[in-house]
């Protein structure tokens, strides 16, 4: 299998960044975050955020306008294909999450042109998870440390080297473009074994079989009240979630010109659904917390055909009051018995 010494990884990425926009984890202050490559990469930590921002940026310009409604307007919304995106060191859960976002943004009557153009030529390089965290529960969703769904290249990591396994044409293209950095030889069998055997501490506690069907009858269950009581109503869970995608659109005028943007939004914010006349269909945290988990575990299954959760545990790490997908699944299971 083609492999690279970890020492040479930065040179590979630097080279890659001439043809790709590289999105990878790096240490930023006290945390490791996914972001556009700026000369450093962190191959150890699981980033605080997900890699969805590479395809659905937190804030994105839709168009620029000149003029005013009174005097006439012109819009320029050209979104020319930039360099393709290279996600480097996604985890299997991240890769899988991208396939779920694809269902939202690429399928159905309306495909999202921007998402599609970013996603179209992208390459997702996923590393097998040798040391899952206490917060990982991807196995509950049929994912595992060696899952390859959504990946274009799969990477096995041992102490010194990274072994590249291309899975798709795009992945093969990426590997081919970097042969100069890669050496032939060996198959990391022990790593493969290790990945297969890796145990996730939460696996036994989280249960999703039949969860969607069970929730069909739980819309009015008192458990929502109990769960939401501790919610602080911030959007940390949704913003860091690899499968949350809600956004809003807004204008930023600057005199006789301006821009229209879209930005992530969160169903946990109190004004997410607030209407012009003051009516709010989800007026309290109960409705909003319910919306979040119903979306993940019921509506998503009905609409996109799968749970909108990959068990990455980011919401567990993000929430300061322990209200997250794992605790929700646990509490819902208890309540639905």
């Amino acid at each position: 299998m083609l492999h690279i010494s970890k020492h040479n990884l930065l040179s590979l990425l630097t080279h890659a960044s001439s043809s790709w926009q590289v999105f990878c984890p790096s240490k930023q202050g006290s945390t490791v975050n996914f972001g556009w490559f700026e000369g450093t990469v962190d191959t150890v930590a699981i980033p605080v955020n997900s890699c969805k921002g590479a395809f659905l940026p937190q804030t994105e310009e839709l168009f620029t306008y000149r003029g005013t409604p009174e005097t006439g307007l012109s819009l320029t919304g050209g979104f020319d294909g930039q360099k393709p995106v290279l996600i480097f060191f996604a985890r299997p859960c991240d890769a899988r999450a991208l396939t779920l976002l694809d269902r939202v943004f690429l399928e159905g009557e309306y495909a999202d042109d921007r998402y599609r153009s970013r996603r179209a030529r992208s390459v997702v390089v996923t590393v097998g998870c040798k040391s899952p965290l206490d917060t990982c529960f991807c196995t509950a969703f049929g994912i595992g440390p060696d899952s390859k769904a959504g990946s274009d290249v799969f990477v096995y990591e041992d102490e010194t080297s990274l072994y590249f396994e291309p899975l798709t044409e795009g992945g093969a293209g990426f590997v081919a473009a970097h042969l100069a950095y890669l050496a032939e030889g060996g198959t990391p069998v022990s790593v493969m074994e290790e990945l297969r055997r890796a145990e996730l501490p939460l696996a036994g506690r989280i249960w999703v079989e039949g969860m969607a069907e069970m929730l069909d009858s739980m819309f009015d269950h008192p458990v929502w009240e109990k769960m939401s009581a501790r919610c602080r109503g911030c959007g940390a869970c949704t913003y860091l979630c690899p499968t949350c995608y809600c956004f809003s659109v807004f204008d930023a005028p600057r005199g006789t010109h301006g821009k229209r943007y879209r930005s992530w939004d969160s169903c946990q914010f109190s004004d997410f659904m607030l209407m012009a006349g003051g009516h709010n269909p989800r007026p309290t945290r109960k409705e909003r917390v319910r919306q979040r988990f119903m979306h993940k575990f019921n509506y998503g299954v009905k609409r996109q055909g799968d749970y909108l959760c990959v068990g990455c545990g980011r919401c567990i790490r993000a929430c300061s009051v322990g209200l997250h997908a794992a605790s929700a699944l646990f509490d819902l299971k208890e309540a639905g018995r």
Partner: protein
Amino acid sequence: MIRVGVFVCWCGSNIAGTVDVGKVAEEAARIPGVVHVEQNKYTCSDPGQDSIRKAIKEHRLDRVVVAACSPRMHENTFRKCAASAGLNPYLVEMANIREHCSWVHSDMSVSTPKAVDIVRRAVAKVKRCVPLHPSTIPVEKRALVIGGGIAGIQAALDIAEAGYDVTVVEREPTIGGRMAQLDKTFPTLDCSSCILTPKMVDAASHPGIRILTYAEVEEISGYVGNFEVRVRKRARSVDEARCTACGICILKCPTSRDSEFNMGLGTRKAIYMPFPQAVPNKPTIDREICRHFTAGKCGICQKVCPSGAVDFSQEDQVLTEKFGAVVAATGATQFSVEVYGEYGYGRYPDVITGLELERLISSTGPTDGKIRRPSDGKIPKTVVFIKCVGSRDENKGYPYCSKACCMYTAKHAILLKEKIPSASAYVFYMDVRAGGKDYEEFYKRSQEMGTRYVRGRVSRIYPLDGKLIVQGEDTLLGERVEVEADLVVLAAAMVPQPDAPEMARKLGISYNQYGFFSEAHPKLRPVETNTAGVFLAGTCQGPKDIPETVAQASAAAAKVISLFAKSELSTNPNVASVDESLCSGCLWCSNVCPYKAIEEKIITERAGKETVTRTVASVNTGLCQGCGACTVACRDGAMNLLGFTNEQILAEVEALCL
């Protein structure tokens, strides 16, 4: 759609000389919402205003921007102009392209784009202006004058003469104040009591004036036209109605203490009148020393009183009354000169203050008008006057000039010469300030009479053989001076009353770093305060002599009269306004309000299935002066100053930051 008209003013060459007015007009026409632009040589002129009126009608303008001078100058002009064309006056905004632009720049290539920015700002704001309407408040046509000195008396007389009721509250047992303590007054040397006493009597006998002596203002609430005032009238233990002022009680009273009126140079009894011409001419029992109150004994006064007027059981009376206006005439006091250890005041009895000398000169004083030195009663031959004791001295006193001391020292020197022709007088001074009608001549006269003016500071005074050796330096001659004096008179600074800050709090007005009350504008609103309806007279506002005090008192009275001449007041609509739905009720706004204009209000509302009550801020628009302090304290963004709302200001900022 909003239709803005922009009127760019040349102001002759004031603006047009430095700003390309044509270019400004051209750019203004491009700002969204602007439907009409024109230029005027002088927009404030009649033709200029006419063109605005015409344009409002012809172009259906619903907002007007006048790009001209400072709003201080002509905002009102153009508001009235717009109102006369049927537009709400608060839909007019000034763009100050003169003071803020043409006057401070010389380069047209800089000032023109800046002027355009200023206009753009004004348009952005005016588009978010909404019509505002003044409301009206009734006026209680009674005035309260706090302090019964010459300032208070003069103000009360002037207001009462105009036909309005006045109440004077004086904390001493008599009105008269500091002026009553003076002997003669500069520069004409008429006798202070001769000119003051008639005024006191006039005031006391005026049907429109009620005098409450031995009384203090405890609390003032409300706002212009509608103050509610609580006054405590202390028990004087003498029934004023019965007392005939025969004076037997005073004569027989066995207890006495230093007389405040005589600056401690004589004594008075426990039942006393501060001075013979006191108004009201009724004695008061000083309960602090009266043996009936301190020891439960005595009672002689009651026994001797032929009319049974002495009433030990009398209690303080608390009156709460409404007034439409308040004149603060609380006066000033004398600097504590003890801090100048080198002068020895307090240690050497013959070092006295100017006010003490007044009492020594006065025929009603402890020496019956003979100048005798306190230590041994001898007639002094050599008197040294030291000026600026506590004034113009940042180290030991105050940096300001007390203003009256130069003249009263000159007066003292003249009076000394008149009373003791053989005496010699030395005046140590820093400068002589004799600005005022006939003042310079008066000062000259004191010199001509032989007073020796020594420019310099006194470094030390010490006693030697019954004399006071005054050592100093004549800085003009550059030599040491030593005077063997019999008496040294210190011209002590005039300082605010010790409780001035407390009074300011009651009045809801501000004061400067020394404690003198602050006027609304040092030049243009010298007797008004920042609290509408509260006016200033006399030395509570700053050091003054009598002519200036009387002039200011009359000015304050004129302000009160013009306020009372209206049947109701229209309030400034630029007041704070609370969005109750946003208000969290923390009341920081109330805590930072200098005008006590914000109070808490309990509202009831539905929250889900429950009815809840909660606290919100509530603005008293009568008290609010539109300063905006509350709006910056409000984290919620619930407080807005109408006419300067958050939205309007953000729009301006945004327009400037394009």
